[in-house]
């Protein structure tokens, strides 16, 4: 920050400070010092006044003393020699009868941060630990931590560490908490305070004396403690239970964090129960008056929903956006709303989201439209109706996002392609940005056979290709024209010829030109060859993706709970989460149900996304098996088998795709295998099971089939 006239001001201040009249008058002296601090905080370099300020330090006026200390602490490292002069005053103040003066002197002595002064500081600090007044002890305890960070390699006297440990039993709760903080810093290399049973229980008993900040600190330190027995664990949990409902959000969050770290390994059921219990205070925090607190709570609600999908389903109205809320909160709320949708509330949620689509802020409108697209994966008809309606507005930014959303939707739910194709007619005039046009071209290319005007829209694009700036649009145009050519050659041949000619002869962008050349050569190889390259396999349009995603174990995100992590990932929604999941797995082996010796267990993690499933299914050897019976999703879920997709009921052939991971309990360690399966019911009696496996493990396959048939039998006896 440049500040003009700085030097003049410093000169003038020096004159004033050394003026004996000013020094004699306490009020004038104080106001001069005040002016020095003011200029300092405005960014002027006032280091030159150091010696004058050292003199001003010797005063009985406490306010002036405090001000001078602010100055000295800022500039001490520039003048280590002169700072020695201050030490005498400070040491004298440490003997002052007034505890406030003592604590002030002690604090600033350690705040000077000069290694050369360490020898003078140690003695008053030791004395400070035994001071009568709690406020002096608080400062002294933290003083040792400051001293340690000043000389990280010098060993702190073991006697001091012992004294700090014994001061955990100090009467004053703040001294206790400060001891914890200081020990954490001093013993950082050894992993912080050693929390043994005695200390842990002492801390737990003193918890209610501390204020909110102290409680958070203590609960954080206790995360490292591992109870010796299950009984002790449950004692601790029931002691902490009231704090889960604390009116103060930080305490509630710290308690929940402690619950998760204590339980998530051995007792997943308890941690889920804790999450359910913390639901109410978290919801209350989502409605807090402070937008930042609201945001923090929303981000953590998203974490919770990863393990308990649909947890706050009935409270979905709490996540409706207020019209004056900042955009970043609105976007988070919409992300949460998407997760909460179920059969009962989908109408209300969509109604609400529809209102945001025409929001004046393009970001909010865009987020709302994408949210509708996400809901469309499970409730495609209602969502497509809204999206089609929005196209009628003929506004650039809305149309662009709608077309992109439709593209993504068609990719996941092929059954919507019919209505999307109808909606596409005529929206090419409104699209201006390259993202939207790319999406439109992709849709035209893939569904060119169903959009009657596709060749003519492409023709219009090809005519303007010279003025087109974005290379992405050009490459997309090439691919789309090629595809339409494959299904409607007569109408497209001329257009394609012109486009290829332009791209190969005139285009400056190498990327586009190379692609055009590739297609040109590909066409030389024959139409069948071209078709097999350009038209990959498609998903079976009769399948619908299931609602919601599988519940992740709490342990996958417990570490990031109550840290800055969930707040920072800006748009990491459902897309990235399941993909990142598998690699946390090594940290915490999943407990297998009924894991006896050598028994097989199934597990749902790592979760598979629909795309991954399709990808794995299409490439892998089959091992067919016949199996009688008829099954239901819930029964399968209970036996840790996840259903991926299924045909609507009462249609033939009826199909279910499912997957699971096998895991061996017992002494012989064997790697987990991934099993994918297809159940096919073609009418008549009997159900065909096709299973694929990676890596191959025949025994695991046998075990999986046993579990599967067991699940199918239970469900058929239960439902039929």
């Amino acid at each position, binding site marked *: 920050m440049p500040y003009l006239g700085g030097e003049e001001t410093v000169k003038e201040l020096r004159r004033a400070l050394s003026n004996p009249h000013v020094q004699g008058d306490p009020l004038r002296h104080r106001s001069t010092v005040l002016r020095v601090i003011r200029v300092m905080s405005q960014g002027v370099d006032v280091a030159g006044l150091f010696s004058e300020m050292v003199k001003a330090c010797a005063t009985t006026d406490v*306010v002036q003393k405090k001000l001078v200390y602010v100055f000295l602490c800022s500039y001490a490292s*520039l003048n280590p020699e002169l700072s020695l002069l201050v030490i005498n005053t400070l040491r004298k103040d440490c003997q002052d009868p007034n505890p406030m003066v003592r604590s002030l002197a002690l604090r600033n002595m350690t705040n000077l941060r000069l290694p050369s002064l360490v020898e003078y500081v140690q003695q008053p600090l030791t004395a400070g630990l035994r001071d009568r007044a709690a406020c002096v002890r608080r400062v002294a305890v933290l003083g040792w931590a400051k001293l340690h960070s000043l000389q990280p390699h010098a060993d702190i006297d073991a006697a001091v560490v012992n004294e700090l440990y014994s001061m955990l039993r100090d009467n004053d709760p703040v001294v206790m908490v400060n001891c914890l903080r200081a020990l954490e810093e001093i013993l950082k290399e050894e992993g912080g305070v050693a929390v043994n049973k005695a200390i842990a229980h002492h801390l737990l008993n003193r918890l209610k004396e501390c204020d909110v900040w102290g409680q958070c600190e203590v609960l954080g330190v206790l995360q490292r403690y591992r109870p010796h027995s299950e009984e002790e664990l449950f004692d601790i949990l029931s002691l902490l239970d009231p704090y889960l409902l604390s009116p103060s959000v930080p305490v509630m969050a710290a308690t929940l964090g402690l619950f998760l770290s204590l339980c998530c390994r051995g007792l997943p059921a308890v941690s889920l129960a804790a999450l359910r219990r913390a639901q109410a205070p978290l919801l209350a925090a989502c*409605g807090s*008056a402070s937008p*930042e607190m609201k945001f923090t709570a929303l981000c953590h609600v998203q974490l919770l929903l990863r393990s308990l999908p649909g947890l706050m389903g009935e409270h979905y109205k709490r996540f409706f956006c207020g019209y*004056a809320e900042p955009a970043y909160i609105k976007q988070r709320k919409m992300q949460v709303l998407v997760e909460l949708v179920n059969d009962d509330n989908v109408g209300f949620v969509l109604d609400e989201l529809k209102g945001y689509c025409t929001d004046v802020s393009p970001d909010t409108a865009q987020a709302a439209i994408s949210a509708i697209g996400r809901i469309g994966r499970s409730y495609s008809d209602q969502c497509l109706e809204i999206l089609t309606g929005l196209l009628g507005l003929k506004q650039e930014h809305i149309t662009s996002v709608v077309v992109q959303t439709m593209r993504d939707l068609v990719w996941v739910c092929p059954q919507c392609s019919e209505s999307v194709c109808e909606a596409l007619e005529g929206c090419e005039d409104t699209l201006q940005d390259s993202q939207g046009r790319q999406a439109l071209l992709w849709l035209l290319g893939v569904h060119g056979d169903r959009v009657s005007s596709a060749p003519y829209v492409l023709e219009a694009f090809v005519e303007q290709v010279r003025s087109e700036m974005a290379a992405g649009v050009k490459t997309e145009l090439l691919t789309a024209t090629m595809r339409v050519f494959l299904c409607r050659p007569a109408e497209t041949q001329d257009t394609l010829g012109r486009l290829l000619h332009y791209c190969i002869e005139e285009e400056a962008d190498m990327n586009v030109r190379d692609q055009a050349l590739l297609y040109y050569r590909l066409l030389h190889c024959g139409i069948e060859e071209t078709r*097999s390259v350009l038209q*990959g396999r498609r998903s079976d349009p009769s399948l619908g993706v299931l609602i919601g995603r599988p519940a992740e174990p709490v342990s996958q995100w417990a570490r990031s709970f109550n840290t800055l992590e969930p707040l920072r990932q800006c748009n990491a929604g459902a897309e990235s989460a399941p993909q990142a999941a598998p690699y946390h797995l090594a940290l915490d082996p999943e407990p297998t149900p009924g894991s006896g010796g050598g028994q097989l267990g199934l597990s749902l993690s790592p979760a598979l996304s629909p795309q991954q499933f399709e990808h794995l299914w299409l490439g892998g050897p089959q091992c067919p098996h016949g199996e009688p019976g008829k099954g239901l999703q819930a029964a399968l879920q209970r036996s840790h088998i996840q259903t991926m997709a299924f045909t609507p009921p009462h249609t033939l052939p009826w199909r279910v795709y499912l997957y699971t991971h096998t895991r061996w309990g017992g002494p012989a360690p064997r790697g987990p295998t991934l099993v994918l399966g297809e159940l096919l019911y073609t009418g008549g009696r009997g159900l065909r099971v096709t299973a694929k496996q990676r890596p191959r493990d025949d025994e695991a396959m046998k075990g999986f089939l046993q579990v599967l048939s067991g699940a199918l039998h239970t469900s058929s006896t239960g439902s039929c």
Partner: protein
Amino acid sequence: MTSYSYCPRLSPFSFSIIFKLSFFLSLLSRDDLPDLHFVLQGRSPHLQRLYPLLCLGFTCNIILNGLLLLSSYNAKHTFINPVGEHFLISLVVIAIRNGGVLLFRGLCVNVLNHNQSSVRGEVGKDAVTVFYEKVTALTGDQPPVVMSHKELHFVHIRQGGLYWVVTTTADSSPFTLVEFLNRLTTLIKDYCGSLSEKSVRMNFALIYELLDEVVDNGYIQTTSTDILKNFIQTEAVTSKPFSLFDLSNVGLFGAETQQSKVAPSAAAARPIMSSRGDQGGKSEIFVDVVERMSVVIGSNGVLMKVDVEGQIRVKCYMPSCLEMRIGLNEEFSIGKSQLRGYGAAVRVDECSFHQAVKLDEFDQHRILKVCPSQGEHVVMQYLLSDELPSAPPFRLFPTIERDNGGRLLMYLKLRCDLPPKSSAINVSVTVPVPKGSLSLSQELSSPDQKAELRAETRAVHWDIPRFPGGAQLSALFKLEVPGLSSASMMEVGPVGLSFELPKYTCTGLQIRFLRLTPVQAGSSQRWVRYVTHSDSYTIRI
């Protein structure tokens, strides 16, 4: 996508495979690279055909990408597993949007060790500059709450038009930090009287002093005014703007006309600590019942959503700690099952109290006992959702149509359903209108109302300074919208209302009495105030 620049476009399906491959690669080390070729060869037939191409143009890109991903993955991991679990506030900054930094204070040693070559003040200043650049670089309404720059993490809130920022480590609790900043702003408001750029500028010495006592070495020590009052010595500097309202209580020749039954609204906006001055001697206590309602009313007039969040705030100027008893309505009940008394029940769904509140008389007589400490505290918070004891305060009857000349006609009839003796003030109705609306002609029912078309919010704002209960106001707006189509009508609405209802609570919560024990002779004054704000009041059309 930039890393894929010199390659032909592939079909989306193979693209998704390549994405996955690059993701798998992110987990392989350099030694595993031969596996890539193995993986590529095993894919579907059309990818195999492209394999030579992939090898030529792609592999390096993918590998680079993979390694990049790998490194970022590792970095993320070390963030989650920090060495020490303690959290620190390294720096507190108070900044304004376009005028630079008001005040900053380095609070711990550790942040400086990262950068030992530079001097203490400069490190702090660097962090401040980084934050400042981040804020000014953004164009939207507010930057995200958490921002990171290398190993620096900024957490900020916005209060009183200022940014309140701390820098911290990645593993610290955001709940604690945000709550701390909120508490800090309340403290500074208590000590300085109000929260604004001006008051911060005038009281920087006091704020330095407060920060020193509140945070030591990056650890929060205390935020309780009871403890702080022993340490804080600097007196607040306040500016008293001249205001005609101050004169309203003064009669002819300065004689006090009304034995003021009403305290001016600014009475509670003064520093809690001042030894001199006429106001300072008064020991007063202010109790505010503040409710915020968020309502969504459907196009058919049905109440879709109602949430009322309420607080009882106590602001105390009394130096000594007394016990205060706050009596609520006897019919006050919590939860659905527990109805009390015979009168109209005052019901809330959830209720929580400040730690210091004693509840031994609450079950029987609905009395809260507190020993208020100086400054402002929230004594009780409550929440009512999904129903209201009375009708929602405003109903809207809109008629919206296109006329033959391509103009948009909006006839809005707004009814206030408050009881006749209450009224709403500062009512502002916001009606979003189609994009490209040009001019507005209006017919309003009284001259004190105002309406205008604002381009930046794309909405018609209709302001009504005062709206008595039971009244009905109407307005006719004609908008010139070029190219108005039937689809554009979707852009009209939902209508947002913002208003303030003085002397009114939606839940019906009242304070029956305020008693201080021991009873002080005359000198203490007790004030109670009720107000309901609209947090978000939306009416769909």
